[in-house]
C-alpha cells in the first residue's frame, strides 16, 4: 500500500447522498481476479451513455475533474456491498481521498486498506468545498494527514478527526497483516484456551 502523507489535487464535487457501491462499480465488473484496471468502469452508469459514449454531464467527464484526486460527496457514501472493488476502482481512476459527512462502515474500512483517505467533515463544510470546486482548475485542495487538516483553495484550514491507529498505518503505508503476525504468540494462546473451553466448535477437514 502506498503511503498517504499530504495530497494536493483537484477536488471533484459529487453532491449526492447514499452513493452506493453498485453505483461506484456495478456487479458485472466484479468478475475480475485482479485489483487493477477497474478505473475505466468507475461510476459506470452515471459516467457513460447507453451506447458507451461519455456522458458530458457527469463531473468526471469534465475538465479539470478528469484528473481529480479528491472526491467531495454527501451523506452515507459507499453504502451497500462489501466489494473492495469500489475503492480499487476509485484508486485506479486516481482518487486518493474522499470527503463526505459520513461513510458506510465497510467502505470506510476498505478505503484505508488501499491507501484512500476517507475524511469526515460536516455537511456545511462539504458544501463549501463543493462551492469551491466551481473554481475549476484553481480548485486545488490540500489534505494534510500528518496535521489532520484540509486546506481550501483560499488557504483556510479545516481540521478533521482520524483514529491514531489508522493514521499511523496510512502515514507509513504499513501492511497490517505483517503487524498482526507480530502478535502470533497471543493468537496461539487464544486458540489453545478456546480449544479447552469450547472443544465442540466444529472444524472441517479439507
Amino acid at each position: 500500500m502506498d503511503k498517504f502523507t499530504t495530497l494536493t489535487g483537484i477536488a471533484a464535487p459529487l453532491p449526492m447522498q447514499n452513493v452506493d457501491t453498485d453505483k461506484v462499480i456495478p456487479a458485472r465488473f466484479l468478475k475480475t481476479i485482479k485489483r487493477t484496471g477497474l478505473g475505466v468502469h468507475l461510476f459506470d452508469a452515471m459516467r457513460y451513455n447507453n451506447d458507451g459514449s461519455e456522458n458530458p454531464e457527469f463531473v468526471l467527464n469534465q475538465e479539470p475533474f478528469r484528473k481529480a484526486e479528491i472526491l467531495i460527496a454527501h451523506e452515507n457514501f459507499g453504502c451497500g456491498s462489501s466489494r473492495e472493488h469500489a475503492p480499487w476502482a476509485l484508486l485506479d481512476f486516481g482518487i486518493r481521498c474522499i470527503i463526505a459527512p459520513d461513510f458506510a462502515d465497510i467502505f470506510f474500512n476498505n478505503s484505508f486498506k488501499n491507501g484512500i483517505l476517507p475524511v469526515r467533515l460536516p455537511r456545511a463544510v462539504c458544501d463549501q468545498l463543493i462551492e469551491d470546486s466551481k473554481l475549476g482548475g484553481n480548485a486545488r485542495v490540500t489534505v494534510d494527514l500528518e496535521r489532520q487538516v484540509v486546506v481550501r483553495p483560499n488557504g483556510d484550514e479545516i481540521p478533521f478527526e482520524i483514529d491514531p491507529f489508522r493514521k499511523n498505518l496510512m502515514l507509513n503505508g504499513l501492511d497490517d497483516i505483517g503487524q498482526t503476525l507480530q502478535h502470533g504468540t497471543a493468537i496461539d494462546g487464544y486458540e489453545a484456551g478456546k480449544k479447552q473451553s469450547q472443544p465442540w466448535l466444529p472444524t472441517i477437514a479439507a
Partner: protein
Amino acid sequence: MSGSAPRTLFDKIWDSHVVERLPDGTCILYIDRHLVHEVTSPQAFEGLRLAGRKLRRPDLTIAVADHNIPTKGPRTANEIQEEDSRIQVQTLEANVKAFGVPYIPILDVRQGIVHIIGPELGLSLPGTTIVCGDSHTSTHGALGALAFGIGTSEVEHVMATQTLLQSPAKNLRIDVSGTLGLGCSAKDIVLAIIGKITTAGGTGHVIEFTGDTIRALDMAGRMTVSNMSIEAGAKAGLIAPDQTTFDYIKGREYAPKGEDFERAVAYWKTLPTDAGARFDTEVFLSSADIAPMVTWGTTPGQVIPVTGVVPNPMDEPDEGKRAQLQRMLDYMALKPGQRMTDVPVDVIFIGSCTNGRIEDIRAAAQVAKGRKVADGVQALVVPGSGQVKKQAEDEGLDRILLEAGFEWRDPCCSMCLGMNPDKLTPGQRSASTSNRNFEGRQGIGGRTHLVSPAMAAAAAVTGKFTDVRQLG
C-alpha cells in the same frame, strides 16, 4: 474481561473474542468461521501467494461458488459460458486446492448461497464470530453470532492470521412487539425497520433485534431480518439464541453432537443480553404498524405499505433531497401519488440470501397454488441451496410452482445482483425478494421493488403489485 457490569449479547461475544487490545483501543479479534466465495477472494489468495503466506486455519474456513453460477443448464466451473464468470469460479477451485481450503463442489447437494449454507450445515453457531467477503454475512446474526461482511484486504488478513483488527461498535436495540398481521412476514418487518431508521440509521452500530414479534419468528424469518441489517447501515444484526435456535441447530451436519451439544447449549444460554445492560440507542416498533411492504425508490429505506401511494418529492423541504427523490422517481418511472397496486411488473425473482430458504418457497407456493403467472410476466424461483431445492421437490413445491407457470431453477445468488445470466433488461420492472433496489443492481436500467416471497408471488399471478391479503 467480563467484570460485573451488565453486558449486551454483542458485548459478550466481542469480549470473548479479543485476543489482544492494542494501546490505542483497536482490538485483535479472533474469527471462528471464515466463509469464502469466488467474487471477493481471488485477490486475497493472490496477496497470500505474493507474500509467501498460507492460511492459518483452513479448518475454520469453507469455500463455495455462488455468485456466478448459472441457474439452468450446465453449471460446473468449466461449463460456465461467460468467460470472466468461468475464470472467477475456476480461480476459486484452483485456489482452494492450492491452499487446502475445504470446498463444496458446485454439483454437491450442499452447494448454495454462502449465507444459506452456513446455518444449514450447522457451521454458524451462537456466540461465534463469522466473517465473509460479503455484506450479507449479517444473516448469521440470527443465530446469535457476531457476523459481518469484510472487504478483500480483510479476507486476506483473516486467511493469514484468523483475526481482524477491529474497533468496538455501539449497541443499537430494535424492539418489535405485537402479533404480526395476516400476510406479513419477516421481510415486511425488516423493510419497515429500514424505512423507519433509514439506510444509515445503523452506521457504527451492531443491532440486537428484540421483542415478542422477533421471538415468534422461525429461524428463516430471523435470518431474513438479520440479513438486511446491513441495509440499515449496521455492522451486524443479532438475535439472542433461544430454544428455537437450539432446535434449529441440533442434528445439522457440523453442529456439536451428543454431550458436546448439551455443553454448547449450556454456554449459549449464557449469551443473551443481561438485564440492565445499556444500549447506546433504542428504537421501538409495533407490529400493528407493519403491513405488506413494497419499496418504491432506489434505496431499501424508501418503502411503503402496498396500500400506499408513491410519495411526492415536492413535500420534501430540503432542495438536495428533493432533487434526489425526483431522480429516483424518474429512474423508477413512477409518478407522485401513483398507487402501488396500479404498478405493473415484468419479472418476479424469488430467492437470494434474504429469501431463498424453504420457508420462503413454501410461502410463494401457497400463493401460487391453483393460480397462473400473469401473461407477459416472467417468474423465477431460485432456491438458496441444493438442500433447499431438494426439500422443496420432496414437498412437491416445484410442481405447484411449475404448474402455475413459474420457472424452477438451480441454486445461486442469481438475479439478486445479476452476476450470472439472470438479469433485468433496461426498463424492466421486478418484484424481488432480494435485498437491494439500487440503480442497475439487477441489470442495467432495471427497476427493482423489494417485497416478501408471498408478495412477489401475488405480483406474479396478478401482473402488478397486489396486497397479498386481498388474494385470500
